[in-house]
């Protein structure tokens, strides 16, 4: 959780065009599923694919602005902070993510991955 930034490993997970605009795909990791989101502005975000409410798969939700609405009970999650918006309270973990040209890279803690892998 509090892994120092230096331990971060950037792993290429795919091309930007692999994700529909205003859409999402999931990435399977040893720590569980991570949702990777692409907004209308071509910004990418990575958050746990697990709604803080009842664990709904957020990648299946509708993406609008920089947020996603969970398909199970319509919680709205801010992709940038992982916080639930509106009257609901809760948060999901966010992960570092970046674009290297058109390649999407996810920042993961290698120790954590090895431990679970």
């Amino acid at each position, binding site marked *: 959780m509090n892994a120092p930034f230096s331990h971060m490993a950037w792993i290429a997970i795919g091309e930007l065009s692999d994700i529909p605009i205003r859409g999402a795909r999931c990435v399977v990791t040893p720590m569980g599923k991570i949702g990777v989101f692409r907004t209308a502005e071509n910004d990418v975000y990575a958050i746990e694919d697990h709604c803080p409410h009842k664990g709904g*798969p957020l990648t299946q939700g509708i993406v609008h*602005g920089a947020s996603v609405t969970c398909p199970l009970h319509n919680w709205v999650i801010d992709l940038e902070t992982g916080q639930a918006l509106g009257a609901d309270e809760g948060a999901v973990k966010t992960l570092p993510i970046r674009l290297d040209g058109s390649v999407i890279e996810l920042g993961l803690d290698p120790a954590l991955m090895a431990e679970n892998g």
Partner: protein
Amino acid sequence: MSEPREKLVIIGNGMAPGRMLEHLFEAAPDQYDVTIFNAEPRVNYDRIMLSPVLSGEKSFEDIIIHGDGWYIEHGVTLYKGHKITQIDRQAKTVTSHVGEVAEYDKLVIATGSSPFIIPVPGHDFQGVLTYRDLDDVDAMLLAAQSGARTVVIGGGLLGLEAAAGLKARGMDVTVLHLMPTLMERQLDSSAGFLLQQELESRGIAVITEANTKQILGDGKVEGVELEDGTIIPCELVVMAAGVRPSARLANEAGLEVGRGIIVDDLMRTSDPDIYSLGECAEVGGMCYGLVAPLYEMARVAAGHLAGEPTKTFKHSETPTKLKVTGINLYSVGDFAEGPDREEIVLRDAMGGIYKRLVIENNRIIGVVLYGDTADGGWFAQLLKDKTDIAEMRDTLIFGQNYQGGEPLDPMVAVAALPDDAEICGCNGVCKSQITGKITDLGLTNLDDVRAHTKASASCGSCTGLVEQLMVVTLGDAYNPAAVQPMCGCTDLGHDDVRRLIKAKGLKSIPAVMQALEWKTSCGCAKCRPALNYYLVCDWPDEYADDYQSRFINERAHANIQKDGTYSVVPRMWGGMTSSKELRAIADVVDKFDIPAVKCTGGQRIDMLGIKKEDLPAVWEDLGKAGFVSGQAYAKGLRTVKTCVGTDWCRFGTQDSTGLGIKLEKFMWGSWTPAKLKLAVSGCPRNCAEATCKDIGVVCVDSGYEIHFAGAAGLDIKGTEILAHVSSEEEVLEHVVALAQMYREQGRYLERIYKWAKRIGYDEVRRQIMDDADKRKAYYERFVFSQTFAQVDPWKERVEAEPQADMYAEFRPLADLTVQEAAE
């Protein structure tokens, strides 16, 4: 580890215990396991709004306070239709009439009251009703359908509301009242006289000083005879001669009982573990029937049950209003004449206005208003505060606006009300509670203010005041005439958006958002699916469906389940299947290790628990067996349920199965504002349950009855009849035209019964039945749209290139666990 909760059992599920639970769950949400026994087979509803239901101004759904979901949400066990017959105080149990036994730590008796039946000969005849609950209203409405003549015995609040409601339903109504003037407990004789005149001008006959001798008939009502020999022929008698607290159960249990169940000012009976509240309770020697003091009891009892016994019940004067549209009357306090009392009276014969204030020692002690009741709240406040009125005595009767010379703007008058001025008498909500919530929570519409403050949420007569308060607090930010916007992204309502899409020729979501000045860059999860539907419906040939604006079920062509897996339902036309189809389904279930298989309510087979990545392969296999998607996930045509009709049934009058299949094959693939379920029954026995469907057909010997606007989900509603036609071709044309009309006019997520009710059933009949050109035009637009809509989404997906976006949806973007293992 939490301690085991105490068991709270409540007998009765009326408004008082309902409100008590709201307070209790707020103060101590986890203290009790709550069980309710309700003799009425339904949830808690607003009993004081039964009169608008009777008159047809509201429906039962409009007056529900706690829907079934509320009980589930709070973990309350509700026994509907269970009458408690015994309380065992030693064992601390209650027993219902069917033998259900429940243990309690604390018991609340809220048995309410029962109507007083005048024991005249004939009082037990068929056709003698009371006016107490929804069953009574339903019985009266049934009688109204056959145009029965009615005598209402009792000219008090309830009797007159019943009389006005039945009159509004077109019945012939006579009111009998024992006393010389109507509503003598709430009105003086002058106001009572004005009221009688008004009722008579509406065609209601009123006979005062009428002493009923007997009800005539032979087991069934034929008339009413008065002591003076007058005979009034009628088929229906409504007894509204008052109520009695229902204290029998408490009495049999050995609790102290007077007129009602005697409680102290904390609502405790003579047994410390038993409370009583509502109309059955007697506190300080008084029994109450109006909602405000009953809600006060609820507050007190909840506080004590939650261990916060700070409040005690105090008597206060409650204003009375009559809930009959167009009749304004208001009374509060004591208005009898007396040696130390003076009165100020204003009469305006032309305007039909009568106002009377009763004054003692320069204080208002009684108010009667008829015709113009706008100042009722202000007078009541002066009464409650015991304000010395000596200085404004000369102008007092003209009301608040005339104090200080110039007439005040009503807004200024509302603004000038003190913070503790009571706005909502039913719920005991004062001005500062409302303005505080508006400011703190940023409320801008009436529904939200109602939800958060309860003000105007019961009888609704203070709605105008609450709206004025919103104007005073919010200024221009509150526009009472404003329509409910689609969502936070726009100020426009659904109807405006639909109209402008057509008028401006907007053919994409970005075009709509640009032209209609959307406030967000790309909408939200509420507006985008709605816009996508409107565009699909309005421009079937030109609009490119935006999958990213569809809910996941319509993207994955399956229903998402709580664990993120999906369920798949193949179409079985008209509910018919075959060994070949069943074998194919069985093979798919085995091959993909599908954990659950179930029959749906619409006669289809549902395979549940399929992993998302397996969906394309499942569809491929089902497709090979000839199946297409059942669209069980769609805001679109779902199923056409049928019975076996003339093919097999010895009662069948037409080929209901064949007709159902024709309808389904014609209409599948169409998108609609909300799901659309059909049924065709082969005879009036109606085995396919067509009369609670969105659109239903009931076959009869002479042809086909077409029904619409039924519901059997959150709401239960029988269908309305659209037409009787004689051929299958006509059925198809009418049903399709109706579906298209709904597609073009409905708001997204609005089921057909809500849409039809909103625009009026007669309007639907007028356009579909009376205007053949219009009907044909609707039909043709539907047919045109279907040429683009009838594409099997499974086939489309399966045939897509595995690299295509469409297919990618079903695979993870990357699997880093595999990568790890490979290293």
